[in-house]
């Protein structure tokens, strides 16, 4: 199977090369009108077919690796390093992307898949799709070069006998979420190649008008949805597996996924300005260029081993390959931009600081600022090593110190933006739209202060409580603003159609799915922020518990009622059994575990979590005290964590609504009101 897989990758490389070269030549011939023996359109069609064929070739290679994993083919180095016979089926599947070579193959396969769909739907705009297809072929060519020559997934075990078993999968990855988190993340990372290809292609061909944004919109939103889900699945995995009670540690891999999400979010917003008002053209083009470059940078930082991380499993030379490719991509972007600069003249400028245009602009600036700050933190270890000879890492406190205020300002803009009109606004309009949200904000401040959320403790500013107070207050204001949009809109529809408010709300959303789906996403963001603010009130306690000893945390009392052990072919485990009491009555039992995976000999904690609306009770079995043999239990009470996951679900639902085609017919009934 190794020979077949390697051959399939070589075929894919050749097809990508043909796709790129033939596609570029065909477009050049069409642009210049040059007569040739072969019709340029025919040449372009063979290039497109080469792209389609490339998908089949990469799929064959991917299937070959899948086969090798399930067949326990330990003649392949990759299988030895990331799988073993006793590994359960689901985790064998996820072994495909647990290592560098497999994850690069996943990247190439997803890119080929996106390209496959793009090339099948090319009749939407033949020329634009031809440009985008050629650019995607260039990206695919790079990844296949790396797979064929720098990180081959089908490399054979060298020198000597074939091992009878493998080293197994990293225990950190043996968790259900790890089956879905990397594919989601990669669907997001790789997906940004498509809007990048469309943007660069539209610029190269001096696309007349903004219709290319409408064409690209679905791709961008789907990609953003996948990346959002990928990022939050990663957070949930970190929370449920790593056992430190938190969900975000500003690890380089986390940072690598967040940066393109920030710029991608900025792009999703600012393209609305270009579509509706013909503004921010240069800005948008560079935003998507940078988003794509950040997806490559993230891979270079983590897979290249430049910055140490719990995720970076090995250093490798592919970092240099990515660096060269990024330089080439950047050079192409700069060259194309300079050449076609005159095509990007804005049709109008921002007229007023208090306008929806300004809100979008500030939103973009703040998102970019957040990205730059985070990028600085990610690159600082490399720069410090280069300049001073020693690697200095930036801790979570620094990141939190700079990103929390930025995040709160973004939340503020999420509420302000929808309330402002385009172009300019009057004081009367501001008063009309901002009274209720401001009222909600100040009422929340008073409620929080009376509930004990006090920013000052013992005469000093408590950062956590201070930012939590601002977060809760802003959340209330933004929530009021967004709900107000739904209520006002539903009122109009109800008046016009005579339907009840529930039906009117449905008709409102279906009339303009993009806007109201977007509002749902904003609502989700508000809920997520409330959940994040809850971390300011986290509590924890640790103790050694003999049999029937107790631990008190918040409203709960934990009693040690015993321990038990178990064995599976994959791991040995010890459970602590803890009865949990609330108000004197036993409510449930929790069983945090400590596992040792047999293939690798690595230990792994399995956290026990009891989640309710108000908080999570999070319990970790830290092992036994060697001197006394008693179990050591650490318990956390983490307020509002479930709001984070609920908020993400709402963000995902909102994006799906926004992706649904709106019913324009109803909109035409509610046309211009005579003044």
């Amino acid at each position: 199977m190794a020979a077949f897989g390697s051959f399939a990758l070589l075929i894919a490389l050749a097809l990508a090369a043909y796709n790129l070269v033939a596609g570029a030549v065909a477009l050049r011939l069409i642009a210049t009108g040059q007569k040739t023996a072969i019709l340029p359109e025919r040449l372009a069609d063979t290039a497109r077919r080469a792209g389609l064929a490339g998908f089949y070739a990469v799929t064959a290679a991917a299937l070959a690796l899948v086969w090798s994993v399930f067949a326990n083919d330990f003649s392949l180095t990759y299988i030895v390093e990331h799988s073993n016979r006793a590994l359960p089926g689901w985790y064998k599947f996820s072994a495909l992307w647990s290592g560098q070579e497999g994850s690069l193959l996943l990247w190439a396969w997803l890119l080929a898949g996106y390209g496959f769909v793009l090339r099948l739907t090319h009749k939407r705009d033949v020329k634009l799709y031809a440009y985008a297809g050629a650019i995607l072929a260039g990206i695919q060519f790079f990844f296949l070069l790396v797979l064929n020559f720098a990180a081959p997934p089908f490399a054979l075990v060298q020198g000597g006998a074939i091992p009878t078993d493998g080293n197994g999968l990293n225990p950190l990855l043996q968790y259900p979420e790890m089956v879905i988190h990397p594919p989601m993340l990669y669907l997001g990372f790789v997906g940004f190649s498509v809007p990048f290809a469309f943007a660069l292609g539209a610029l190269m061909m001096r696309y007349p008008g903004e219709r290319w944004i409408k064409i690209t919109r679905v791709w961008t939103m789907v990609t953003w949805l996948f990346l959002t889900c990928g990022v939050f699945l990663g957070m949930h995995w970190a929370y449920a597996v790593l056992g430190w009670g938190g969900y975000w540690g500003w690890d380089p891999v986390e940072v690598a996924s967040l940066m393109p999400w920030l710029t991608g979010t900025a792009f999703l917003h600012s393209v609305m300005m270009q579509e509706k008002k013909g503004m921010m053209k240069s800005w948008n083009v560079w935003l998507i260029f940078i988003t794509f470059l950040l997806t490559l940078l993230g891979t270079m930082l983590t897979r290249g081993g430049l910055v140490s991380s719990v995720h970076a499993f090995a250093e490798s030379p592919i970092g240099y390959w990515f660096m060269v490719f990024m330089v080439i991509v950047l050079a192409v972007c700069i060259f194309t931009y300079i050449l076609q600069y005159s095509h990007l003249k804005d049709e109008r400028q921002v007229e007023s600081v208090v306008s929806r245009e300004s809100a979008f602009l500030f939103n973009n600036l703040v998102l970019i600022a957040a990205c730059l700050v985070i990028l600085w933190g990610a690159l600082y270890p490399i720069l410090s090593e280069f300049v001073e000879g020693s690697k200095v890492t930036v801790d979570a406190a620094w990141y939190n110190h700079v990103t929390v205020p930025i995040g709160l300002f973004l939340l503020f803009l999420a509420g302000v933006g929808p309330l402002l009109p385009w172009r300019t606004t009057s004081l009367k309009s501001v008063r009309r739209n901002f009274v209720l949200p401001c009222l909600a904000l100040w009422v929340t401040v008073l409620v929080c202060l009376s509930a004990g959320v006090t920013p000052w403790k013992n005469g000093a500013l408590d950062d956590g409580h201070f930012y939590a107070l601002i977060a809760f207050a802003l959340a209330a204001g933004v929530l009021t603003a967004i709900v107000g949009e739904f209520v006002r809109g539903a009122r109009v529809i109800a008046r016009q159609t005579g339907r009840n408010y529930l039906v009117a709300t449905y008709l409102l959303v279906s009339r303009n799915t993009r806007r109201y789906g977007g509002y749902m996403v904003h609502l989700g963001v508000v809920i997520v922020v409330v959940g994040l603010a809850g971390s300011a009130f986290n509590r924890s306690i640790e103790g050694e518990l003999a049999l029937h000893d107790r631990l008190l945390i918040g409203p709960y009392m934990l009693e040690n009622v015993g321990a038990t052990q178990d064995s599976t072919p994959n791991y040995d485990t010890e459970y602590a059994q803890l009865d949990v009491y609330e108000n004197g009555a036993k409510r449930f039992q929790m069983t945090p575990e400590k596992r040792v995976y047999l293939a690798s000999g690595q230990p792994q904690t399995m956290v026990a979590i009891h989640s309710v609306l108000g908080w999570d009770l999070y319990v970790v079995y830290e092992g036994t005290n060697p001197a006394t043999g008693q179990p050591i239990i650490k318990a956390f009470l983490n307020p509002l964590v479930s709001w984070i996951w609920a908020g993400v679900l709402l963000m995902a639902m909102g994006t799906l609504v926004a992706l649904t085609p709106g019913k324009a017919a109803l909109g035409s009934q509610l046309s211009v009101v005579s003044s």
Partner: protein
Amino acid sequence: MSENLGLIAGVLLAVALLVYTFWPENVFAAQKPKSRLEYLRERKEQVDENLRDLSFEFSAGKYPQEDFAAQKKQLEDESAKLVAEMELSN
């Protein structure tokens, strides 16, 4: 799968994909360049959508009468310019 079998399967795959790529095809998609009129039509559609959104937001009570009238006039002027240019292009 033995190495030889793997190579044979690979060669067969390569042949199949090359045949698919270069299969003689007489009907393929082409596209005439977008005319100025088509571009103007797209712009007008967007301006009309902006007008509809503005009217809806006014009905929803977001803007006072004066703000709505000023914004509507600007959009109607823009639409009129586009219509005039479309008529010249026809």
